[in-house]
């Protein structure tokens, strides 16, 4: 690898990607703004029943769904009469690689094998690398993981170090980079050099692989409890977790279940900053990915992102780092389940939201992730303190990302803080319409934008008309 050709490689991006993903995305485009999302999911991906079989083959999915009776009881003790929904948890840590990402990797790796690619590459610092590597072993393919790991002082987050180790445990070549979005350049070079498949997080394969998660939750609750959940809450970063789960819920025919996104609040920390890099105690499931991807999904490594969380979100909340560490501790201490912190983001939010809900209602936390050295509240908090972040008990409302982590003094202080979906929708509309260059909005544009923003046609039209920065005519 040499430094000279950054611009040249970046200029070949589309060509490299087309070969490495094998999808001609242009066939789904109607014009500069509109594309047929459902057709893309149907044609480029696989059907749900095929995916269930693919996943059975490699031991993915069919994870246990547990009722968190003690955590539910604590929520009820802190709630007025009649309040405190039952909290269920889908134990995705039981997947072969220890997180729901095994679902996401399973279809990509299957497809890569079927298409005759000699190996797979993924750009990820996280659980996804381990998932791809694990699935690839089962299908006898080689894996290369490109990972952002250390800052300019050569220091790495314990959680990222652990995830790198896990990829190596599954026999993958791991390219470990310092901070910066030019990781993408290294990734492109690897794809070009190897001819391997890009097991992107954002293809129809990846997202369709997560549909089984939502589908299983609905069927497990129907069978066991003869009910459908009132809400499912998903830890949200790039949006694939939520999108896939929600699509699976719809495919299972559950119409009343609300889909809630939850992210750890890391506002104020810059994701590409060398200095901020090690001031974050969460490496995924946070607002640094969650908000940009919700407002503009097509910032991924493929031309059209199949993860489109805004289409499915009924509500989007944030929690603080200290609250998630608290709930991670609670899950171990009163439920007997030690699991990784990032997956517990939605658990922290569910605990707060359950207290708003009636006691006969059900909220499902749709994942856990594995835990271990580095990927655990103890090393994360020790690392935070070493990096000058203050850790104390108190009121989590006072936490300042990068400066403090406040472990709630008592569980009643845990909150799910609502993000304004109206604002996120309006940013999305601005970006989508203005970057398309479209000047006339007709029925097909409105229909597309309404689906993208999860609004009805009249509301989306009204919203567009009210945004000053959008200058379009309605046909």
């Amino acid at each position, binding site marked *: 690898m040499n430094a000279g050709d950054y611009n040249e490689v970046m200029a070949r991006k589309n060509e490299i990607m087309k070969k490495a993903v094998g999808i001609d995305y242009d066939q789904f485009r109607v014009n500069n703004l509109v594309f047929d999302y459902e057709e893309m999911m149907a044609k480029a991906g696989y059907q749900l029943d095929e995916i269930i079989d693919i996943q059975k083959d490699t031991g993915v999915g069919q994870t246990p769904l547990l009722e968190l009776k003690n955590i539910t009881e604590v929520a009820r003790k802190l709630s007025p009469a009649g309040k405190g929904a039952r909290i269920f948890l889908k134990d995705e840590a039981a997947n072969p690689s220890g997180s729901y990402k095994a679902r996401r990797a399973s279809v990509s790796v299957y497809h890569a094998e079927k298409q005759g690619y000699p190996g797979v590459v993924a750009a990820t610092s996280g659980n996804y690398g381990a998932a791809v590597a694990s699935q690839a072993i089962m299908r006898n393919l*080689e894996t290369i993981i490109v990972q952002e790991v250390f800052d300019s002082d050569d220091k790495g987050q314990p959680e990222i170090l652990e995830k790198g180790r896990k990829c190596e445990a599954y026999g*993958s070549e791991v390219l470990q980079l310092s901070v910066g979005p030019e990781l993408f350049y290294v990734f492109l070079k690897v794809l070009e050099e190897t001819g391997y498949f890009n097991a992107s997080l954002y293809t129809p394969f990846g997202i369709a692989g997560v549909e089984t998660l939502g589908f299983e939750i609905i069927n497990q609750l129907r069978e066991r409890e003869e009910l459908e959940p009132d809400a499912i809450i998903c830890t949200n970063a790039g949006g694939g977790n939520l999108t896939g789960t929600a699509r699976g819920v719809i495919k299972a025919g559950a119409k009343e279940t609300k889909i809630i996104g939850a992210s750890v609040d890391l506002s104020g920390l810059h994701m590409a900053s060398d200095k901020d890099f090690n001031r974050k105690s969460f490496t995924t499931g946070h607002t640094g990915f969650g908000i940009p991807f919700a407002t503009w999904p097509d910032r991924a490594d493929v031309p059209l992102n199949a993860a489109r969380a805004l289409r499915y979100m009924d509500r989007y909340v944030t929690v603080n780092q200290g609250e998630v560490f608290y709930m991670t501790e609670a899950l171990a201490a*009163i439920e007997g389940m030690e699991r990784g912190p990032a997956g517990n983001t939605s658990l922290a939010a569910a605990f707060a939201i359950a207290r708003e809900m009636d006691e006969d209602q059900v909220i499902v936390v749709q994942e856990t992730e594995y835990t271990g050295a580095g990927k655990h509240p103890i090393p994360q908090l020790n690392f935070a303190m070493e990096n000058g972040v203050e850790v104390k008990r108190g009121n989590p409302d006072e936490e300042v990302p990068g400066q403090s982590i406040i472990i709630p003094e008592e569980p009643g202080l845990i909150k799910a803080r609502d993000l304004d979906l109206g604002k996120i929708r309006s940013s999305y509309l601005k970006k989508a319409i203005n970057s398309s260059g479209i000047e006339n909005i007709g029925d097909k544009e409105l229909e597309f934008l309404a689906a993208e923003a999860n609004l009805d046609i009249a509301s989306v039209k009204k919203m567009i008309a009210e945004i000053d920065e959008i200058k379009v005519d309605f046909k």
Partner: protein
Amino acid sequence: MAKVKAGSWVEIYSVILEPGQRAPQVPEDTAKVPLELKVKGFLQSDAELGDEVEIETIIGRKYTGKLIDAEPSYDHSYGRPIPELLKVGRELKEILKGEGGNG
């Protein structure tokens, strides 16, 4: 300098982009430092730390770079217990035993 034997499992380092070559969108602090790469693999011939060497990765691909570590270790662990978390379980159990609320 200690000799590292050919065939040892090692880690190498290289600079991918110098500070002046960083992407235009990176923040100032990141633009000031190089984009660096570390990879592990089997050393192809005897060398000393600091030498430019070639390695073969676990999947058989070759890279060259500066030899920075022989038998690189995994040092991430757990560390000291966190006093702020130690009592959380006990406090929650107290709440479970207590009266009040919708319980």
